[in-house]
């Protein structure tokens, strides 16, 4: 049975333990950053930053909200990156956990194309040409541990477990949260293994919080099925 995350943004305090715990477990170096007039840092995901708490100040219905969005790879159930690339040596799914995993073989491909294939704009190119992103702490999960980010989370914003259990938890929390935030919703729960609960419309959190719908009303899911095939055929290994 595949695993899933449930990320309840209404409980996130942006302590950013997840961000550091991810680096700690993966032995990732720090980035040299500057204060750009926001507490959020680094500004974006990178080959050294797989997890990033995005922070946005919004006035919604006349009330100030400080919205936190712990962003990471969604480990899509039908992952466009994987399907598009069609090379399990570079991108594959761990059938036990559902983790979408990238290998060094991604360096053999056009990184920008892999990044562009992601509806959530997650993967990033490293200096070695490989493409990097969250690996679900697949090693930990196989050993009965929680992903580092989930374990570090103090408030229960980050959760991890069997997909059914996470969906159930997500729906329960949604019902509770709706009483206070009527616009609350789960973000793309059918398509991803990282299910977010947002109190407000997703665009308030991040441009890529959800995979948007196409203008003709075709869902992303359907669009993917249509698009993936030609893409897979076209995307090829670099020389």
């Amino acid at each position, binding site marked *: 049975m595949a695993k899933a995350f449930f990320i309840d943004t209404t409980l996130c305090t942006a302590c950013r333990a997840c961000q550091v715990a991810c680096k700690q477990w993966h032995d990732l170096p720090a980035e040299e950053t500057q204060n750009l007039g926001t507490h959020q840092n680094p500004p974006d995901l990178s080959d050294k930053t797989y997890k990033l708490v995005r922070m946005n100040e919004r006035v919604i219905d006349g009330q100030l909200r400080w919205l936190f969005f712990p962003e990471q790879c969604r480990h899509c159930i039908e992952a466009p990156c994987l399907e598009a690339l069609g090379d399990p*040596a570079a991108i594959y799914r761990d059938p036990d956990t559902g983790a979408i995993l990238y290998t060094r073989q991604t360096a053999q491909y*056009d990184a920008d194309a892999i990044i562009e294939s992601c509806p959530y704009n997650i993967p990033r190119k490293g200096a070695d040409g490989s493409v990097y992103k969250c690996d679900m702490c697949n090693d930990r999960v196989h050993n009965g541990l929680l992903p580092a980010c989930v374990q570090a989370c103090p408030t229960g914003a980050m959760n991890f477990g069997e997909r059914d259990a996470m969906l159930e938890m997500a729906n329960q929390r949604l019902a509770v949260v709706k009483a206070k935030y009527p616009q609350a919703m789960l973000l793309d729960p059918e398509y991803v293994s990282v299910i977010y609960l947002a109190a407000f419309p997703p665009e308030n959190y991040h441009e890529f919080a959800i995979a948007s719908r196409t203008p003709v009303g075709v869902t992303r899911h359907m669009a993917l099925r249509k698009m993936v095939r030609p893409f897979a055929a076209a995307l090829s290994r670099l020389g």
Partner: protein
Amino acid sequence: MDVSRRKFIQISGATAAGVAVSHLGFDLRPVKAHAQMLKTQYAKETTTICCYCGVGCGAIVHTSRRGDGRVINIEGDPEHVINRGALCSKGSALKQLTENTNRLTEPMYRAPGASEWRQVSWDWAIDQIARRVKETRDAAFEVKNDKGQTVNRTTAIASVGSAAMDNEECWLYQALLRAMGLVYVEHQARI
């Protein structure tokens, strides 16, 4: 789907055309096997309490049993009843506090007017410090105050610190300072 996200079809289609090489059939087993072995597998495990704020979260320290015997990993202790495995950003960075090339690892000395540090031995440093204490204390010891009351103290030496020490160390330190006759004894709790 976001427009810019969908552009990839055109772009990648155009750039990648004509170099199609399939890589199916690559043996994935070594990659997977490696991914499933924990870096902490053979490490020594000890528990600690986080050294930052006053919540007192428990953490597990994984120390290598081989080579340099240094820390491999520090993460929240799931059996600690306060934090249940959670830590904040600082607690999650405990390994980098410990394994940090900026740390002081040798006693250092700066002479009056000098513009550089110089590395010294522990024995020399402790001996010299004790001698400074004795010289200053003996020269400025007050048996009686202005009113003629017995005070047995020196106000020529002061100490600040430290809430960063263990209870046992704090207790020893205050005992020693009081035996030295210090009354200027303060630390973080005052600020």
